[in-house]
């Protein structure tokens, strides 16, 4: 469902502003929605995403908690048991790890272990990923840990519009959502209408951001702008690339991904997270299982190296960039390569 908005109502907005608006609107609509975390009150969060919420809704609805992530998530579990709809902010990707046991042993399992009696309508917002010059422990791509946990949904926006729509959908979901916010896109801007924000499709639907015929780039979150840039640059090489923004890693949209790959016959998965054990391996396996006879080449991955996240002055060598993506696309066994004798 897309609301038609007059072009004049649209103005530049950042992803952070769209997220703030989503929290605001969810809190205004449903008194059960409670925002909690470290510094989310007067400060508005270290990324200012909760800016103004405590002032508007009071400290009980947007509350600064003690500095203890397991305690934050654990108490949120109890609040959800009592019918609230907590939205938890973890300050940084790597600071969310103390909450891991609560997430894996309780948030993810509570519905199942009680046969649906105690659902967990929780949203856990986690700023993630690198590219912001952060020092150690501020740039992890932790999505694979969460994806390995049945019972969780894992969602990540890549556009201003999706930041609003996906966060609304996450808060509205009766199941827990790990909502990964790409830090380096917080200040990305787009024309957006905060007065009549578009509603997006339910969780679990990917978006085709660029139509193309020759190969599909499958990506999400912080790597989407890089893939869009790579697709533009690929035109010079004569490749017409399709770009898919997964938006939701779990549930996973096999349908959109497979329809695209069956059409293009080639696929590259791009993400910042480590390649080994990363989401790309699962995605490549799913494509191979479902689209094998349509594939002209193995599904390739462009991922972060299998190293601890590098110090900020070296991070550009770690992060997937346009050149690395194009180099990988070049390895997709193009017919012209074979004709030219350049193929492997």
């Amino acid at each position, binding site marked *: 469902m897309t609301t038609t908005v007059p072009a004049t109502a649209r103005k530049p907005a950042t992803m952070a502003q769209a997220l703030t608006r989503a929290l605001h609107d969810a809190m205004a609509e449903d008194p059960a929605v*409670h925002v909690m975390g470290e510094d989310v009150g007067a400060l508005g969060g270290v990324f200012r995403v909760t800016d103004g919420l405590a002032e508007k809704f009071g400290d*009980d609805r947007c509350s600064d*908690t*003690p500095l*203890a992530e*397991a*305690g934050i*998530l*654990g*108490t*949120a*579990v*109890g*609040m*959800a*048991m*009592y*019918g*609230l709809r907590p939205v938890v902010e973890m300050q940084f990707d790597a600071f969310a790890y*103390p909450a891991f*046991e*609560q997430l894996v*042993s*309780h948030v993810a*399992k*509570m*519905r*199942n*272990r*009680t*046969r*649906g*009696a*105690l*659902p967990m309508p929780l949203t856990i917002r986690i700023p993630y990923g690198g590219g912001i010059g952060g020092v150690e422990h501020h740039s992890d791509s932790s999505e694979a840990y969460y994806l390995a946990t*049945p*019972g969780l*949904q894992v969602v990540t926006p890549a556009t201003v519009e999706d930041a609003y729509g996906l966060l609304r959908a996450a808060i509205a*979901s*009766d*199941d827990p959502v790990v909502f990964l916010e790409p830090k380096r896109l917080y200040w990305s801007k787009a024309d957006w209408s905060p007065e009549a924000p578009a509603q997006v499709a339910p969780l*679990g639907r990917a978006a085709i951001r660029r139509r193309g015929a020759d190969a599909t780039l499958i990506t999400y979150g912080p790597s989407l702008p890089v893939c869009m840039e790579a697709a533009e640059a690929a035109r010079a090489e004569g490749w017409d690339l399709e770009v898919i923004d997964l938006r939701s890693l*779990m*549930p*996973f949209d*096999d*349908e959109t991904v497979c329809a695209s790959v069956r059409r293009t016959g080639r696929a590259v998965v791009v993400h910042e997270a480590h390649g080994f054990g990363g989401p790309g391996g699962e995605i490549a396996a799913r494509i191979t299982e479902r689209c094998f006879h349509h594939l002209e080449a193995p599904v390739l991955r462009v991922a972060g190296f299998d190293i601890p996240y590098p110090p900020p002055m070296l991070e550009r060598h770690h992060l997937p960039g346009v050149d690395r993506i194009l180099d990988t696309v070049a390895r997709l066994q193009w017919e012209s390569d074979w004709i030219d004798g350049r193929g492997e």
Partner: protein
Amino acid sequence: MTVLEQPGSSRNKGSLPGPAPAWRPRVDPAPLLPDAEPRRVLGTDAARRLDPALLTRLYEQLVRGRRYNTQATALTRQGRLAVYPSSTGQEACEVAAALVLEDQDWLFPSYRDTLAAVARGLDPVQALTLLRGDWHTGYDPRERRIAPLCTPLATQLPHAVGLAHAARLKGDDVVALAMVGDGGTSEGDFHEALNFAAVWQAPVVFLVQNNGFAISVPLAKQTAAPSLAHKAVGYGMPGRLVDGNDAAAMHEVLTEAVERARSGGGPTLVEAVTYRIEAHTNADDATRYRPASEVEEWRAHDPIALLERELASRDLLSDEFVAATRDGAEAMAADLRERMNQDPVLDPMDLFPHVYAEESGQLREQAAQLRAELAAEAAGSTEGRDEPAQEARP
């Protein structure tokens, strides 16, 4: 009044640094400190003033609880329970925790606290579902406001705090009582839960059953604190020490803590000093880490015997009452035995629909796979293609 110097003035040659800004303790620690000795009521003058109805009710529950423990332990030997962590010797703690709560309150038990759940009115078969292994939580927690039996230590404590906090925000009269063992007090979640509860002044009672051991590790290797109750002071809440085998003292101390929580006074940490008479579970061998003499010493301080002595001294322990109590407990045990001896009805397709509100694509695929396997299995067994049940072994 101290006159602070202007910023930058300390650079002036010869000026002195100012005094530290005023400091005072944020709360007076004295009232938070536990008593020097665990509180005891039975055998003291205080017991004389207790309502006979309370004493007889406690007795009925203790006898029933002991019988429940022996029956559940027997069910492990018959292979009807995968495992049973017994609360034998700790029945006074379990029973008191259940009895001090109102209907609208919530109980947050650990895996050793099935008895508390049963004493709160839960069907024993449902309480034991987890330990039989046919499902994880065998009951709807909302019906009797009993949170799922929690296996990861102390992780249920922040849940209790969050639930109590949420109820308070909504203006509801709800107290949460959360149970944990001495070993669990070493976990980070214990610390975080107590801290959150105190900061939020949440209506929570934390009941630590100090039964001396975390599986095999004695308390001395668990903590260097004067007592577990003393830990409360660091969070700004009262710590209370109580004889965990004295049912009347347990009831009194927990009642005070619940009333304090209910009236907006905030959380309390209660340490019940007791002893785990049985091994950790039926799979454990307690002779490897503690002397039999220690167990015998605690058997002599048995919660049922302590209460019987009190009842007898007040002429409340008639033969008829004892017999009726025993018969009631036996009837409960017989019913439990009979129902647990029936094989649970299992539906493998139940593995999928509760993971998410809406089944994901991959779960639909996997459910279809299992359904097909079950159909093939069923077809195979009707066609007699099953593997022989017993193969000859060399």
